[in-house]
């Protein structure tokens, strides 16, 4: 506790308490208890004997010496005491008063000793006494008055833990007391006392009507809004009030409200400036793409943020959410500069929970949920399909007798009378169950004393997939089980040394089909409804094209009987942290060393059946019986296994310093770290390494003017030795306006802070490539046996060699000059609280200029030189935007509510990229956002005669020759001839729509609690986001014209009847070339609004039938419960864009119920 009080050399007495609220409840407890003792018998100053022998020392040094050996605490007013005056004191075993008399002899300073507090001031003595009374009032100590009534009570925190040192007062009076070590209090109050006010540092103050009640059990809740809230920052933590960078965080409690398996998805909408895009919902592989403040490099891959768990680079998405205390996002240069080379895209810091001193607290949770797709593709049935296909062929001018589907087939599709010969399958419904269960359990224990604290947690998650298991192999499915464990231990070895150990890990058990998610979904989504009859009596029935039409027999059941694979992934993370207080060197200096080791071991066992079950093709004999032609055979599955290992370690050592000198508050940090990753692609034999040196200085004056300076000095293996190191400085300033004297008299703002940061951060990442500086590299390829198909390398000389001679290729081209990509970031922020602290608002404006972006120089290489592209520093991107966070919290009687909207906007623009000269300005990608889609400008759906005139009228030129002019028919897309050459070519494409990451995200959190009920909901949306539609929407029947037809396409395609309302071109095969390319027709707005989370809970504080429990909570929650989107064809995030980005496992909606018991 001596420790803590050193920071109290603050002159301004009125600010005394705020400064002491160091949130360490434990130290506070001791302090307050000792204060209480002081009032019962003020003997400390008389009983304490001090020895001070100082020659020519300053008054300050004398005070420090006294504080050093006693519990005395000096308080003085700024400017009233000359601390630099030199005195000589020789005192052995003297009382305080004797020493002080000598020190202040001959000055106009006087002092008052009140137990351990020593107040120094100037005469007259009255003024000083007045100050003391203010101090005592602040302390909320007892000034006894005549009483008529005695009340008793007990104060605990929300977990049932007694709160010693809480202040209990009668509102509007100076009558009060503080609670004892067990949280109990006794107080005599006037009979007419109305309201009892109970407060404690870091807790929300509670007011209770007194009435006739004489015993009060008061539960105080934590007040996270208080000024003393601490936020996690790079390599440490900082008081939120003094933070000058742009940082936002979400607590573990909030994260638990989203019943998602991947933590990444639980972040959606909870953090301003963070956008998540979930492309797949596959169990165990549903991590979203996460972007902090959008995209600022030339690719979305190059814009991925750095993720750290407990200060070490680790993946966080599969950690049990019950283990997480806090997730913090660092956004601007000031916050991320210390990460140097890695910090350019923002940093996600995940902190796990740690033990608190107190009796063991056990928390057990279990929940059960049901997952069901949010929204997925819907396909037309066989009858509609056949009609639509024939209609398309008729439109192409095909004769009736050449149409793909016969009249007879169409009738059977309609009647459904011969389902084996004329199937009508809704494959998604057939193969996927409407819902699948998901369960989660966790037990954790935490507690400790002042020597040792612990947090131990064990959790499990079981997530079933939606696949039906048709085969006899019950494991032929997708499922995911995860078992998480963690033990975080903190040991105070003695006053100086402490040690922490974190052991965290998980075992993931993933079952999947060997053919993989993408290929299975392609099969399902591209199959036509008549392509097979599924599994009938254990037989895989395929279609006979004689009945269902040419080529219409590609059923999606290839996975049936193809086996399964099981991957067990074992992840272990270990941290060992030693720290020491180096007060003997100088006050406030700490030393820390940390070592971390991470290992991942994945074992995959695969049972793959290349030739699964035989297929049965139906024929109808003349007598009407159906016989089957069998082809193929059932083989035994082949077993194979593979293990993958990765490991990495991280070490850091640091010195940090924090001290107050009068009104000057200084901290400093110097840290060295290095990390090494083993078996990284593409040189598994050469570990990847990083080294970094980190420096930080923060300074504030009177907690009013804040200044931070951060610097990272980093080295990366990707650059040549002379280009290897980069220095990344950032500075920020802050001004807490409400601390100014002239702001004291206003009551609009209870808190107002302005901040600005400027700095440079770097990036060395380039698509996973390593050693970018190395000279051209060649590969020698082994001579291989090649059956058929082309040998990729080498050559097959001779007449009957089955082996190719070896070949060698030039693969890479290095650039010795390549170096950091740098990003200059600026951030202006305003934090304020107003309306009596009910409205909290944060506003951030940012601007980022990325330059020297690491790209390949492809665009500069002339084809005939055939140079292998090499990495260069080229390209500039500007990204700017703003974030607004509002929080309104109020209480009406027992009803507490919070409404917290937030809004983020970020827009990037390519200022310079490697782009070849274009003939027309609108063809340049430069000047547009990264990944801007380009396509044709749609004019109208063609109507012979009319469109030509309309075009001429609008553009004053003849309608241009279209891409598919030869087969142009009514309902085809007509594009605008941008360059006016009369022909639609690639040079008529321009920027259309938005990229597939959103520019704007917004959310609204609402929480309400009434007595024991509480409700939380989170609405989250995104806009200025687009998707260019290709497969499976476009071309409508697929590339080979035998694939399923999406109902949304079917319903919106042009027909003569819907010519006025159609939004998509006619269904055609002959003129696909005209209608398929990306144009404003296929560019869709993928904006959405989701009810991301909803949780309703009920908490019972003392469970009557379970004496040992302190509280129990039951709740129901859900994720993605409602989705609204302009795009109606599918879930707006799962739309799929481009040829690579095909549709995958659907997004999940989860309904979940659970309970939590605290012991």
């Amino acid at each position, binding site marked *: 506790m001596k420790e803590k009080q050193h920071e109290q050399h603050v002159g301004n007495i009125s600010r005394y308490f705020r400064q002491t609220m160091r949130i360490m409840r434990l130290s506070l407890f001791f302090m307050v208890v000792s204060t209480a003792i002081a009032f019962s018998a003020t003997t400390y100053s008389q009983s304490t004997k001090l020895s001070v022998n100082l020659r020519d020392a300053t008054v300050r040094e004398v005070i420090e010496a006294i504080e050093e050996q006693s519990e005395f605490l000096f308080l003085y007013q700024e400017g009233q005491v000359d601390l630099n005056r030199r005195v000589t004191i020789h005192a052995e075993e003297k009382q305080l008063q004797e020493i002080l008399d000598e020190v202040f002899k001959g000055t106009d300073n006087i002092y008052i000793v009140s137990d351990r507090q020593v107040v120094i001031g100037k005469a007259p003595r009255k003024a000083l006494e007045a100050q003391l009374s203010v101090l005592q009032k602040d302390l909320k100590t007892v000034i006894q008055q005549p009483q008529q009534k005695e009340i008793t009570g007990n104060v605990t925190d929300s977990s049932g833990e007694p709160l010693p040192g809480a202040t209990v007062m009668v509102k509007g009076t100076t009558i009060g007391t503080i609670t004892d070590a067990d949280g109990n209090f006794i107080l005599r109050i006037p009979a007419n006392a109305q309201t009892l006010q109970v407060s404690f540092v870091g807790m929300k103050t509670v007011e209770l009507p007194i009435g006739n009640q004489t015993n009060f059990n008061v539960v105080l809740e934590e007040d996270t809004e208080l000024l003393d809230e601490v936020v996690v920052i790079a390599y440490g933590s900082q008081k939120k009030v003094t933070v000058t960078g742009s940082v936002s965080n979400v607590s573990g409690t909030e994260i638990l409200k989203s019943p998602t398996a991947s933590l990444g998805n639980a972040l959606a909408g909870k953090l301003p400036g963070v956008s998540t895009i979930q492309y797949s919902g596959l169990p165990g592989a549903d991590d979203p793409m996460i972007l902090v403040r959008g995209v600022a490099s030339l690719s979305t891959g190059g814009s991925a943020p750095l993720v750290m768990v407990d200060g070490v680079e680790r993946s966080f998405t599969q950690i049990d959410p019950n283990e997480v205390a806090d997730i913090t996002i660092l956004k601007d240069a000031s916050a991320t500069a210390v990460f140097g080379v890695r910090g350019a895209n923002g940093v996600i810091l995940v902190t796990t929970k740690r033990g608190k001193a107190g009796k063991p607290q056990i928390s057990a949770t279990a929940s059960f949920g049901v997952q069901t797709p949010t929204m997925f593709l819907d396909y037309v049935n066989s009858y509609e399909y056949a009609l639509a296909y024939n209609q398309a062929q008729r439109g192409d001018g095909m004769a009736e007798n050449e149409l793909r589907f016969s009249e007879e087939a169409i009738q059977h599709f309609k009647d459904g009378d011969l389902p084996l010969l004329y199937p009508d399958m809704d494959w998604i419904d057939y193969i996927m169950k409407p819902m699948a269960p998901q369960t989660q359990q966790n037990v954790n224990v935490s507690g400790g004393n002042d020597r040792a604290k612990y947090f131990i947690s064990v959790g499990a998650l079981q997530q079933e997939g939606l696949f039906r298991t048709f085969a006899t192999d019950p494991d032929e499915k997708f499922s995911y089980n995860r078992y998480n464990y963690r033990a975080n231990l903190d040991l105070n070895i003695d006053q100086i040394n402490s040690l922490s150990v974190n052991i965290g890990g998980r075992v993931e058990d993933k079952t999947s089909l060997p053919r993989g998610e993408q290929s299975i979904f392609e099969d399902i989504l591209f199959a036509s409804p008549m392509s097979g009859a599924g599994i009938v009596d254990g037989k895989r029935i395929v279609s006979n094209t004689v009945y269902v039409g040419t080529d219409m027999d590609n059923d999606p059941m290839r996975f049936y009987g193809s086996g399964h694979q099981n991957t067990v992934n074992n992840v272990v993370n270990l941290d060992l942290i030693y720290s020491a207080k180096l007060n003997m060197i100088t006050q406030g200096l700490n030393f820390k060393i940390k070592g971390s080791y991470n290992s991942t071991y994945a074992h995959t066992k695969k049972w793959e059946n290349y030739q699964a079950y035989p297929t049965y093709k139906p024929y109808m004999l003349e007598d009407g019986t159906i016989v089957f032609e069998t082809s193929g055979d059932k083989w035994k599955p082949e077993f194979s296994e593979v293990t993958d290992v990765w490991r990495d370690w991280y070490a850091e050592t640091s010195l940090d310093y924090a001290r107050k000198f009068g009104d000057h508050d200084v901290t400093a940090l110097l840290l060295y770290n290095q990390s090494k990753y083993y078996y990284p692609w593409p040189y598994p034999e050469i570990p990847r*390494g990083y080294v970094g040196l980190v420096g930080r200085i923060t300074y504030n004056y009177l907690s009013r003017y804040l200044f931070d300076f951060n610097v990272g000095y980093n080295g990366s293996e990707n650059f040549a030795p002379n280009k290897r190191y980069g220095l990344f400085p950032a500075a920020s300033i802050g001004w807490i306006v409400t601390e100014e004297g002239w702001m004291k008299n206003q009551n609009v703002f209870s808190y107002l802070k302005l901040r600005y940061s400027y700095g440079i951060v770097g990036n060395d990442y380039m698509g996973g490539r390593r050693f970018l500086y190395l000279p051209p590299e060649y590969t020698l390829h082994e001579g291989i046996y090649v059956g058929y198909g082309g040998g990729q390398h080498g050559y097959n000389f001779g007449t009957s060699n089955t082996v190719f001679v070896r070949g060698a290729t030039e693969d890479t081209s290095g650039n010795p000059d390549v170096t950091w990509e740098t990003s200059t970031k600026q951030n202006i922020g305003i934090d304020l609280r107003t309306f009596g602290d009910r409205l909290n608002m944060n506003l951030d404006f940012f601007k980022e200029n990325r330059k020297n972006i690491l790209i390949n120089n492809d665009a500069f290489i002339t084809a005939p*030189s055939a140079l292998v592209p090499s990495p260069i520093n080229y390209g500039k991107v500007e990204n700017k935007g703003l974030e607004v966070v509002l929080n309104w919290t109020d209480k009406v009687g027992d009803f507490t509510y919070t409404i917290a909207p937030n809004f983020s906007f970020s827009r990037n623009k390519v200022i310079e990229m490697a782009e070849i000269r274009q003939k027309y300005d609108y063809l340049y990608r430069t000047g547009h956002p990264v990944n801007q889609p380009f396509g044709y400008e749609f004019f109208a759906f063609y109507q012979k005669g009319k469109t030509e005139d309309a075009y001429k009228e609008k553009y004053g030129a003849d309608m241009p020759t279209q891409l*598919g002019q030869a087969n142009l028919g009514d309902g085809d897309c007509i594009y605008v001839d941008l360059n006016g050459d009369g022909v639609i070519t690639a040079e008529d494409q321009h920027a259309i729509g938005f990229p597939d990451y959103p520019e704007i995200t917004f959310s609204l959190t609402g929480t309400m609690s009434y007595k024991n009920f509480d409700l939380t909901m989170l609405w989250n949306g995104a806009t200025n986001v687009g998707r260019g539609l290709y497969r499976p929407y476009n071309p409508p029947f697929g590339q080979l014209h035998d694939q399923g037809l999406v109902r949304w396409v079917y319903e919106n395609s042009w027909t003569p009847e819907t010519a006025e309302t159609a939004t998509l071109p006619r269904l055609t095969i002959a003129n696909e070339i005209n209608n398929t390319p990306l144009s404003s027709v296929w560019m869709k707005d993928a904006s959405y609004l989701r009810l991301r989370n909803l949780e309703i809970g009920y908490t019972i504080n003392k469970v009557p039938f379970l004496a040992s429990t302190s509280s129990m909570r039951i709740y129901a929650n859900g994720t993605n419960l409602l989705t609204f989107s302009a795009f109606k064809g599918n879930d707006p995030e799962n739309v799929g864009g481009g040829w690579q980005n095909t549709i995958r496992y659907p997004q999940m909606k989860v309904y979940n119920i659970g309970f939590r018991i605290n012991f």
Partner: protein
Amino acid sequence: MKMKNNILKTAIAVLFGTFLLASCVDDFKVGDAFLEKAPGVAVNADSIFSRAEYARAYLWEAYNKLYTPHNSNLEYYTMGDCPVDALSDCIQSRLGWGDMKELWYPGNYNASWSSGWDRSRMDFTKIWAPIRNCWNFIENVERVPDMSADEKSRLQAEAKILIATFYYSLFRHVGGLPIIDHAYLPTEEYNAPRASVEETVDFMVKLLDEAAATPSLPFSIPKAEVGQWAGRLTKGSALGFKAKVLLYAASPLFNDNEPYSREEPQDAVDSLQVWYGGYKPELWQRCLEACEDFFSQNASNGNPFQLIQPNGNTEADYMAAFRQAYWTRGNSEKIIEVHTRTYADEWGDTQPIGVMHQGAYCPTVEFMEMFPMADGKNFTGMSVYNTDNPNNVDIFENRDPRMYETLLTPKKGRRWQNYAQIEVWQGGNIEDAMGWYYGPMMGNGIGPYKWCLDFWNLGVDPVQFSILRMGEMHLIYAEALAETGNLTKACEEVDKVRARVGLGKIAVMNPTLNLTTNKANLINEILRERAIELGFEENRFLDMCRRKLTDKFTTPLHGIKIYRKDGGGKLQEGEPYPTAFKYETYVYTDGARAWWKPGFFTPKWYLQALPIPEINKGYGLTQNPGW
């Protein structure tokens, strides 16, 4: 002091403990030393040229990229898997996904399709990497310590021939090209704009001359080495290929009094990048000399290159000889062959076999008509089309044996897979035999046979394509002779090729054509002979372009339906082969070509467009006329 000691002890213990985890397996380093490890095992240019084995491997990689229209490692087989001859009058593609039906037949091809999408015939960007590979080899092989000087010069000569073949494969589709005569360094300024046709041709010829003048380059692969080394380029390859290059150069497309196209832009015309600037008879003379040089050197080396000759004089013997000539590896027929696969496989290969199922190689009636009768008279059976065929002419009887090897037509006694008699007519057993691919492959009534055979008898014969073989060599010689006035000798050269399959002398059997005196007729006959000798070997479209055969592009093509006159379908047990057929020909409506519409086809189609992005890079690439 005591405390300090404790700190030190604990610090050491923790440090030790932490790094024990890692350091028991890894070195422990701090600071820059920590990053120093770069890949120690990387192979760079120095290591490639430090051993003969590695240096050779580097050259073999260039062989790997040798031009072939079939399954290739350079992805030449673009156009969505369609053969380029599907633009000629020999093949009409029915391939569902192929670019013929989507892009080319409807006339949708334009300059924007010339890159990015593999939809044009020759992607301009593809040949340069193997050319760089060759130059890199030529420039560095001297450094190899464990290789004889002879081998070095031989391999350099092979590399030069390779460069010439890469150049030719693009030159014929677009005209003049940038001259790349060394391997560029990453730091070097690029300075090779598009060269003229003359410069490009001279560059190829120079490379071939240099190769041919290399003493260590053998004239042919010695018999004893063929098993191991067939496919290596030789002096014979260089001499023969020179003639092939000069034939294209001397052809009217480039060598005429008028440029082939007067459409805008004319930059390439003005800079002589798409023609010679006038008719130069000496070009034919050069081609002739190249042929004579080849044949005389061949003779002085003991004629290692010879036409494969039949073992007897039956139709089966002729067919077998012809198959060996186009297919089998390492025999005397082959001057330059491509070995990118070990054997042909029905389902493993895309081109040509895999897409033959799908209708990429449907032969036209026009192609079928080019095959003469077995005696060497030209085919005249067109008169019975769409008639009742009163004289019961079987137009597929007694034809050039090469037709039966190239096309799947009705033929008595023709086996097909396990059918002793395959019935190629409407309702015949061909439909059962082929199953689902009857529709796409036989949709025109007759099907392809060369390369795919009946899909079952492919054996393990490994070669799939020859860039130059003796059959073509004689026909090049014939054309050069005809153009330089020696019509009689030209006929003799043509007859050598015909004799292999038992056909009579061309001038004798077709007296009305006056082939020994009428040069135009003779050129036409040589082109027809080339079309059938080199059918499905990527020849016809190029001949149509270099000879500017506009009418062949604009005349609608025909399919045929063959019916048994007695109305029957499959032959019943014991039923004899039918003797009377009716032939119904029809103009293709499915995949009708825009070129057949009046005014649509212009000579710009003879050369393809160059990619817009490359032109926009501004290094001196011009666009071809009309694009």
